[in-house]
């Protein structure tokens, strides 16, 4: 049986996180965890070992999504997708330092998001 790709969602806006979760699960993905702070993200990453991390940049708490991504990058080169309501060059430059798979701005285009995740998973786990 084919293993469903596991996605970690880091998003402080509950409704948004929930809609992403439903959309991913509807399209055959497993949301292994969804957390709302940067600190929780690193913890959840160690615990759930996701195949991909969906990271919001503007998080509540002292650590934003980019800082949380740096923590995860210290541990792994797991594919990373940033989502953000901010969209300016300095922000993108900061985020690009951690080699994300993509940078999506809100409101999200779910179809495009799912398509991007699926493509990344195919590249990462080629059929045996």
């Amino acid at each position, binding site marked *: 049986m084919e293993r469903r790709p596991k996605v970690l969602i880091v998003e402080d806006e509950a*409704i*948004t996180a929930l809609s992403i979760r*439903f*959309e991913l699960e509807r399209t055959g993905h497993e949301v292994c965890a969804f957390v709302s702070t940067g600190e929780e993200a690193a913890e959840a990453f160690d615990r759930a070992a996701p195949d991909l991390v969906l990271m919001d940049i503007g998080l509540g708490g002292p650590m934003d999504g980019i800082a949380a991504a740096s923590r995860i990058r210290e541990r792994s080169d797991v594919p990373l997708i940033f989502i953000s309501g901010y969209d300016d060059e300095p922000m993108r430059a900061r985020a690009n330092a951690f080699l994300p798979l993509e940078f999506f701005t*809100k*409101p*999200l*285009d779910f179809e495009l998001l799912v398509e991007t995740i699926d493509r990344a998973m195919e590249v990462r786990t080629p059929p045996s």
Partner: protein
Amino acid sequence: MRDEIRNPRTLAYAAIVLSAAAMLAMSNIHSAQRRAIASDDAVLSSLRLARIDLNRGFLRTQSSGAASSDRDEGLAMLRQAEQTLAEASRAYADSGVRSPENLSSFAEIDGAFASFMSRLETDGAEGERYAELRISFYAIERKAELLDSAIQEELREFLRGLDAQYVAALWLASFILIGVTAAIHASARAKARISASLRESQELMRSIIENTPSFVYAFDTEGRCVLANRRVADFMRVDAEWMIGRRRAEWMAEETEKAHRLNDGQVLEGNEPITIEEDITEGDGRRVFLTTKFPLLGPDGRVWAVGGISTDITERKRSEQELREALAEREVLLRELNHRTKNNMQVISSWLALQSSRSDDPAVVAVLREADARIKAMALVHRKLYQGGNLSSIDLADYLRELLGVLVAAYGDEDLRVSTALDLQELRAVIDVAVPCGLIVSELVSNSLKHAFKDGREGTIALTLKRNAADEIELAYSDDGPGCPGGLPGPGSKGIGLATVKAIGENQLGGRVRFETDRGFSFGLAFSDAGFRARV
């Protein structure tokens, strides 16, 4: 030397000296001529004396029975007369009046006298010979008188000419003196005028320098102060006169002095003005000056000092800084507002997605998808604002191009075969214009995909945008679907899309709206955005 000659005073002095020399020379000539005339007078006197002696000597020798002593005395008188005549003749020859005619007359008299005396002494004869001598004597005397008269007349004539020359020379000298005096006077008046003008100019300059609110100063190439106005002295809390000849280090902090000296060096090196900002930290704190420094050239064209004018712009700089901070704060707030707006839109969009995922009714799902598309149309404006670096306006063509792509992708399904034809003129629009335009295009695209190109029908959506000659924005949309055979839906119909488009176009944007459904569907909108621009 040439410069000295050009000097009016030198010329005046030279003219005076020349005039005086000319007068002196003329005076000397006149004196010499007078002396010559006096000499001629002496000649005539001698001649007269000789004539008297001649007469007396002749009469003494002529008298019959005269004693031998009388005769000797007469001869002595005649010799005396001869000698006197000879001396007069020589004196005449040496005098300034030397008429050849008169000289020959003298020679003739001298010869006759010599002959007469020779014959008288040799022969000692008397009687007839005396008579001959007497006749000869009278002839000689007459000649002497004529000569005397001629000489007198000649001398008088000469003196008249000489006096005329002398008078003319005096007049000339007087004119020269008067002219020179007038020239000196005019020169003195001109000099006085120039001096007064110079004083006025200096006073004006001093008044400007002392009353300007700017700092005015100059330092020579050795760094010594050669000029400092009262503002400089007051600011430095020293006396302006005290500053002259001193270096900045005596009243400035080391670092400040060094910076200012380096700026002076830049002027000296480049030999051209510079405009810079300079700091001075003295007394009540740091002050900022807008300074223009420039080289001061001497008569030889070399830089001898650096002049400077500094205006205190501390308050202006402070205001600018406050303004910059306020603008930065406004920018941050606007960005944050945009971010929050997009986040909120995301929340709404997420709600709609959640609702949609819970519904099995295709109509509900379609309605929710349309609502989501509208939200995305508005959110795209905020993204464009965010990305463009200008938080008040966006490139409307760029926005509509991307929006059309997003909408076709959002509404379309796998068998959708719709192409787009875009003719979009680049123009900027404020958010209050861009959002309604986006909503209109969103409704129109939704309408076309739902009605014109359903069931896999192939077709084209065309969109044009331009600014017309009346400075209005013109938006035209069309599809080449079947149009609306039964006409546009009325106010009471279930569809609200086109009613919304009409309301946005006419009521919100204040434009003219046109729908056509004969061949396919087309929509036109023209409106002025001037009022919207003015509100920003």
